């Protein structure tokens, strides 16, 4: 996208702190006024935030009454219910399975960092492993999905949605560029319809329409239905990110591969797609950030993700009125995750997707 910083050949000379101040804070009288005004405003804002969130805060307690001694935030709503916050209503003796599933999810996202051919096999393995640990897979005692929840559910939906959506997105992107008319029509139609609809209507669809379409007596659980819809939703966005990558691969690459005697399948799979995906990674990561934030929406169809758990806590008499703490906490969880991912993706973008130079 943007040109690397040092290409222009203009090297910035080192400047003394005084010159830096003059240039960046007091260049004109207007700048000076702006600087002074902003300093006062920011200092006041940061100080009151710090006072509320840290200095005057109460960290532990078993109801909001414990927090009434001090003026600041009442983080007890989070700490007293940390187990629900992290893992929902997963049975207490089985929490190690959530930890194991967490390791599986980390394995599932590792291909984005390692990016070797073999590592891509880890992604589906990791997701399957996570579901096996959580659900029991017939070996461990079964824990129905109604008991899954908390921050962990957001990560589970986010990661498995992405892992399933990526291959689907690749197929859709290839279909959209195909010259076979029916395939092109179907993929374009799917992508545009899905991208045109708000996720919430699709989630409603998962909760009220999908049960109509399955045979009487067969019912998928709520989480599976939500996952199917979120995967399909995200695959349409993934397809558009990947299409951008495909467009960036010079036509000569495919032509050269064909000239060397590779067939259309191998040209796409061995030559075009690897290059396209490498270019598309920042876009794919941004799509993922969007999806991860959207996982908070599942509480609308009564799944107990972190938002659902916190809202349940707020409905509890002993924690009523702590909306600020609850929402600031959720925002912080997502902010840390998304900010870290976006920084990392920006670095990939700057280095053209090559990790080596980024180090």
């Amino acid at each position, binding site marked *: 996208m943007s040109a690397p910083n040092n290409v222009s050949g203009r090297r910035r000379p080192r400047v003394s702190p005084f010159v830096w101040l003059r240039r960046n804070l007091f260049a004109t009288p207007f700048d000076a006024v702006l600087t002074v005004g902003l300093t006062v405003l920011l200092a006041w804002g940061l100080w009151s935030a710090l006072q509320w969130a840290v200095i005057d805060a109460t960290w532990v307690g078993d109801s909001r009454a414990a927090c009434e001694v001090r003026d600041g935030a009442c983080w007890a709503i989070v700490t007293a219910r940390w187990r629900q916050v992290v893992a929902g209503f997963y049975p207490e003796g089985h929490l190690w399975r959530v930890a194991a599933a967490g390791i599986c999810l980390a394995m599932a996202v590792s291909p984005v960092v390692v990016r070797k051919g073999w590592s891509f096999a880890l992604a589906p393995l990791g997701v399957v492993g996570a579901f096996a640990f959580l659900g029991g897979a017939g070996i461990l005692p079964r824990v129905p999905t109604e008991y899954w929840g908390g921050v962990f559910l957001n990560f589970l939906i986010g990661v498995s949605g992405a892992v399933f959506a990526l291959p689907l997105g690749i197929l859709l992107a290839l279909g959209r560029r195909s010259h076979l008319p*029916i395939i092109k029509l179907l993929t374009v139609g799917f992508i545009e319809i899905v991208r045109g609809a708000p996720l919430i209507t699709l989630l409603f669809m998962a909760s009220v329409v999908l049960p109509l379409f399955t045979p009487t007596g067969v019912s998928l659980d709520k989480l599976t239905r939500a996952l199917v819809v979120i995967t399909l939703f995200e695959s349409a966005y993934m397809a558009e990110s990947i299409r951008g990558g495909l467009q960036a691969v010079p036509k000569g690459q495919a032509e050269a591969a064909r000239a060397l005697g590779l067939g259309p399948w191998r040209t796409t799979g061995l030559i075009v797609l690897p290059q396209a995906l490498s270019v598309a990674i920042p876009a794919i990561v941004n799509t993922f950030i969007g999806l991860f934030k959207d996982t908070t929406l599942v509480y609308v169809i009564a799944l107990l993700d972190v938002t659902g758990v916190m809202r349940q806590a707020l409905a509890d008499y002993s924690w009523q009125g702590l909306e600020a703490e609850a929402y600031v906490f959720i925002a912080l969880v997502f902010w840390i995750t998304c900010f870290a991912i976006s920084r990392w993706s920006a670095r990939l973008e700057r280095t053209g997707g090559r990790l080596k130079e980024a180090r």
Partner: protein
Amino acid sequence: MGEGRRRLQRLTGGWGGLALQVGLVAVLVATAWWMGHNAEVNMQTRGVASGFEFLDRPAGFDITQTLVPYEPTDTHRRVFLVGALNTLLVAALGIAAATGLGLLAGVLRVSRNYLARTAATAYVELARNTPLPVQILVWYNLMLVAPPPKDALGIDGLIFLTNRGLYLPKPVFNAEGGIAFAAAGAAVVVGALLASWLKRRRTFTGHAPSPRWGWALALAGVVAALVATGNPTGFDLPHLEGWGFTGGVSLAPALTALWAALSFYTGGFIAEVVRGGLNAVSPGQGEAARSLGLDEGQALSLVVLPQAMRVIVPPLASQYLNLTKNSSLAVIIGYPDLVAVFAGTSLNQTGQAIETLALVMVFYLVISLSISAFMNWWNSRSAVWAVSR
């Protein structure tokens, strides 16, 4: 092999491609038939008749905020209209505010001033990296803890913020208000046409008055239309009466919160779009314009901005589309948008899940396709500019 046959083969991709496509269609048709059959059986057991007759049945529920008159005895068709207008209302308000906020933050992000730059960056990172549903809940709770009407925040006599909503002055129009609006609209159209004609003349011949004369004419026309009919006759100002405010325009807490959240969230994305656009224009362009004798303002408006706009407009349009789609999160705080009243209440009352959701999706699809059409039009227009220069 004839030309036609070769083309046919390319189109069908040979026997392999043909088999793939036919197979795919067969699978899809079979799945659709199977799902349709299931739906038929399931709806029969639930006693729901498929079809759109329910649109003419009375809705039987009230809606708290409507732009057009609505009674509980009105039909579900009317509910759709009310919901769609509410969606468009919050989308329009949100687009206006998000554009302003995004423009400000985007320009500040490339500002010389370090603090302004940092503050803008902090805002952008906060807005973009936290989930919108959480932001909506935060703004809604802020509205609920706003002071009660007797201690309302705001500028006396103009604008008030209370826990019952936001109150703004409302212009009052007399009986000729309609005529004034029609005349003002006509003046704007004529002015715009004149401006575009002058601009074209100027581009081709180099000798024509400035297109600004067209806009001046439009402004003069609007003022004349209002003055001639004596409009607006005054402003209906909100004022405290008893326990609440009367007069003026009132925005319910849910609408105010949704508006604030959508603007705050999308503003962060628009700021990045604006920054990207400004960075995409090489600094040499502005420097060259200055050295040709254009002043700072001219360099910005005639050289830098037109080039930045080419980069800014397509992603901006898709941010507008996202905002409109995101307004469906209204359901979280009970603002009666299309999804909340039609895909929510109407659906629950009639049980017509497939029909209501299909109609709602068509509504959003129409908006989405019109914005795509606009983007394509804009892209082709900018492409023509690039060639003709």
